[in-house]
């Protein structure tokens, strides 16, 4: 599978899942695709359908209304699939800690392979995170 993982590492298709974020991480994720950062040179592409995705980029604290949908989404994705949680919200829930409409533990909803903390993480940090994921795949 080594050979296949290398192919996978060079062609990560990203599906963007927003679980009640403040929008900023999402914007920064899109920013990654634009001229300054251009993740397409690493073979990363944003796709619209979960069926095409290799990576789920999760943002936000995930409120209770959206959690079952995200779970469903994760189940509908073709395996292998990686979940990368972007931002401080999924990592530590920062200011929303006391919210009544937040799921207790995001890991209960979907397993998360990697956290990229930051509010929002700088694009450079996200690229580093992606590079680490690629590094894992490359062995």
């Amino acid at each position, binding site marked *: 599978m080594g050979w296949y993982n290398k192919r996978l590492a060079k062609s990560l298709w990203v599906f963007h899942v927003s679980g009640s974020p403040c929008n900023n991480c999402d914007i920064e994720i899109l920013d990654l695709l634009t001229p300054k950062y251009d993740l397409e040179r690493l073979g990363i592409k944003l796709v619209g359908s979960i069926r095409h995705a290799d990576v789920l980029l999760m943002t936000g604290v995930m*409120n209770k209304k*959206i959690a079952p949908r995200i779970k469903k989404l994760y189940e509908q994705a073709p395996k292998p699939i990686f979940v990368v949680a972007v931002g401080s919200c999924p990592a530590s829930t920062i200011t929303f800690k006391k919210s009544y409409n937040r799921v207790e533990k995001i890991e209960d909803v979907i397993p998360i392979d990697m956290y990229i903390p930051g509010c929002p993480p700088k694009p450079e940090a996200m690229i580093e995170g992606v590079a680490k994921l690629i590094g894992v795949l490359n062995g």
Partner: protein
Amino acid sequence: MSKVPVGPFHPLLEEAEYFELTVDGETVIDIDMEIGWMHRGHEYISEMSSFTQSIYLVERICGICSTSHPLACVHAIEDIDNIEIPDRARYIRSLVGELERIHSHLLWLGLAGHFIGYDTVWMWAWKYREPVLQMMELISGNRNHYGMMRVGGVARDVEPEKLPELHKHLDMIEEKMKMIAKIANDDPVLKKRLKGVGVLTQEDARNYCATGPTSRASGVRGDVRKDDPTDAYDLVDFKEIVLSNGDVYDKLVVRVLEIIESVKICRQCIDKLKIVKGSFWNKVEQVGEGEGCGRYEAPRGEVFHYIRSDGTNRPIRHKVRAPSYVNIPTYEASCKGISISDALITLASVDPCYCCTERSMKIKDVHNKEVPDLLTLSRNKTEKIRREIND
């Protein structure tokens, strides 16, 4: 009748949101909206937070309006006690606010391009948005959540040695913005695609109480910066852009022209910052009892904050009304009878920010009509503990 779901996860929507289009063939007959996917409910958080904390909290209502919300919030707090702010702070506030407007409008322009499949526009707009973020980084130290606002002024000064660099960036932006304005005015393809699409009539704009570029494109004037000038807006010179057709194309043009106005304001602010010296913050010890309305013209329209204070350092009621909250219902008027492709770009045309729509609300202990003095509180607490021990 067939129903087409749009959302909660759809490439058109950066955030999760759900629209249900009723279609006949490709024509949208009806639209139904279900929101609440982004609702994080800050009430319980707010019971713990002071005014200062809540400013940072409202910053995280929305990542794109991360200056507008704090700004409206501090306006509301200042409105309670008529707190005055120093001149230098006024210019810094307006500078940051206008920079945010530029970056937000460019962001929308790019996304709108992406939504109609014009990725070139997307990439170009976002390329020219990058210097704005750099300026923000230069001023505040962060690309997105700036943390600049504070009751009585701003949190950080803009050091004089940074001003020339800001100037340089601004020149670049202005040049590119003029180019983009020209493209928006000339490009026949864009015109063909967007003209007459998703028209929001003047009457509907008023009925739905739409604000910002959405209403101004429909010929309903109203710009908080002109109507209720705060900060530096009565000190600088700028125009209010009002167009009349109300279609997506006019919404685009309004935004593009507003960018140019914003650049103008920024330039004036930077120039003034060279001259106006002094403090950037009046220290505010205590906010008194009372209620205050704060408003600010966010990129998407009027942001409205209502804060009720009982004299402690916390709000007992904090109401936030984001512009998208009143702009999104206009879909009911503008999306009916057009094709799916048109309806989807119309959905994007008000530059909806769902995070804002389902914003936080704050409320404090509602039972404290009067604030009990510390001694009573202490006694009560002792009483309570004693009871618990006895149990």
